[in-house]
């Protein structure tokens, strides 16, 4: 299945590579945002199925609160992607889980597939090993 994905990551090169990886997998990247404000604006302007959210953005560690808001209030399926998974150790309400950076393409693919299946309400048996689920 192809989804509309928002990449929220403040390192431009990392975001760029992630965009390519997702597009290679057949998804549509509706935008990349480096801070919470831009991310919220993009979600208001376009339909977003899935957001890949880094915790540390250019305006500080605002990714956690942003992810919660996107998941709980704005109907977006949220996966955190961060090198500090410890910061969301106890989980974030309304979001699926966290991927540890650095990842590889296979991890991204399996995690995105998993998240989209959950969003579609399809049964899922196993989560990819690199994805730490919440709840």
């Amino acid at each position, binding site marked *: 299945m192809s989804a509309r994905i928002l990449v929220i990551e403040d390192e431009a090169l*990392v975001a760029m*590579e992630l965009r390519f990886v997702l597009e290679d997998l057949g998804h549509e990247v509706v935008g990349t945002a480096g801070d919470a404000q831009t991310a919220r604006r993009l979600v208001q302007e376009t339909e977003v199925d899935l957001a890949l959210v880094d915790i540390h953005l250019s305006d500080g560690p605002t990714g956690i609160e942003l992810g919660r808001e996107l998941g709980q209030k704005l109907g977006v399926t949220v996966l955190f992607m961060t090198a500090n998974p410890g910061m969301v150790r106890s989980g974030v309400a309304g979001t699926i889980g966290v991927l540890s950076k650095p990842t590889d393409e296979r991890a991204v693919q399996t995690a995105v597939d998993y998240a989209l299946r959950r969003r579609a309400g399809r049964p899922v048996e196993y989560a990819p090993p690199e994805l730490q689920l919440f709840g």
Partner: protein
Amino acid sequence: MTTTAWNETDRLAALHSYDILDSEREAAFDDLTALVARLCDAPIAVVNLIDADRQWFKSEVGLGVRETPLETSFCRHALLEQDRLIVPDATLDPRFACNPLVTAPDGLKFYAGVLLKDEGGLPLGTLCVLDTRSRPEGLNPLQTEILEVLAGQVMNLLNLRKALAAGRRADADLMTTAAALAESEAKFRAIADSMPQMVWSTLPDGFHDYYNARWYEFTGVPAGSTDGEGWNGMFHPEDQVRARERWIHSLATGEPYEIEYRLRRADGVYRWTLGRAAPIRNDNGEITRWFGTCTDIEDLKRVVDAKDLLSQELSHRIKNIFAVVSALIALSARQFPEAKDFAAAVRTRINALARAHEFVRPHTDASRPTVGTMTLHAFLNDLFKPYATLAGRMRVTVTGDDASFDDQAATSVALLFHELATNAAKYGALSAEGGAVTLETRNEGDRFILVWEERGGPPVAGQPERVGFGSSLATVSVEAQLGGRLERVWAPEGLRVTADLPATALSRRRAAQSVA
């Protein structure tokens, strides 16, 4: 020879304690001897004190000298009596008949002396009268009474004189002590007021009765306004209870007082302060006073906090750089499709380095990967997670003694196990469905051994002809970087790799510090 109740050593000591020998004539004594001479109608009257080798006259009438030898002394004999000695006619007394003072022309014929005794009954000498004519009838009752009474008065004079002298000495000592105390106090104040810290002192019950100049400069409060318990109100409201409890505990137990709290400065700003105090004790071990200091540590705290913050920022930047480098390689590889495999190989190695770095960098509680585990096993389990089954079961099982590893070893550890896992996934146990790997680590004296064993993979043909680049990386990491030995055994059931390291190889920085 009559034996006495006293001994000569004690008697002399008592005499000397009056500090009377060789003193000047004093009117009080001279008045008494003049009176007693007239009343007894005698030419000679003496206040006589018997020293070790002479008799010395505090006061005398009719003799003209202040001392004479003991050999010819009448009073010497008087000492042997209980209270007095009356000699009516010396020429008839065997004790004195041959005495030159008696046999001389116009010599002494009559003697009457009453002992001068101190409170302990020790005889110091006599009050006596002498005459050149004998008096067979002795002194009449009135004269005897006069002699007794005036002897008593001589003793009173001597005792009073002694007491006054002692009093003057005590006063002098007191003044010396007071002066020494004042000087000591002045020194203390000078030191205390020159110190950059605030200094205070309390009574044993904790009543604050002294603050140095610095306290009043810092707090701006009027002198004396924080005496007693008023100090607690100068603390930040959130710190008041904690500080009071700690102080009360120290007062009760005598333990030194130490606590950090916020103290209000004259301008209203609260500054972090280190308060410390220690008791001083008297000879009985009882606390007589507490002395304490307050040191402003606000700036120090800021520096420490800033340092921590900087350290974490740096660490975060390094982590970001790994991510950026990895992304750059991937992006560059998109331009060169033939380099896709190369790029993938490089990226996985860099990613392994990045993960290892995450385990060795300074962390806050929030950023740490998992609670308390910054160790080799935690890192390895994280590294091998991608090889787990879909159900989440690990295919590389890590067992044995855990170890910590520092940033110097991180690269080598990461590359070694990345290579082993990648090869196992391509050609070895992890490439077959039922295959698995055990990794056992153990301490052995001053070595640390890691054993990687593959099982259930495709049958092993034997040692490969060429050493792959990845194998070279692993060998270099273990042997050159970590100073250990790497051994590979291509057993038919599966590859076994043993890394034998010095125990300090994984934490060389810490080992070096503990030696220093």
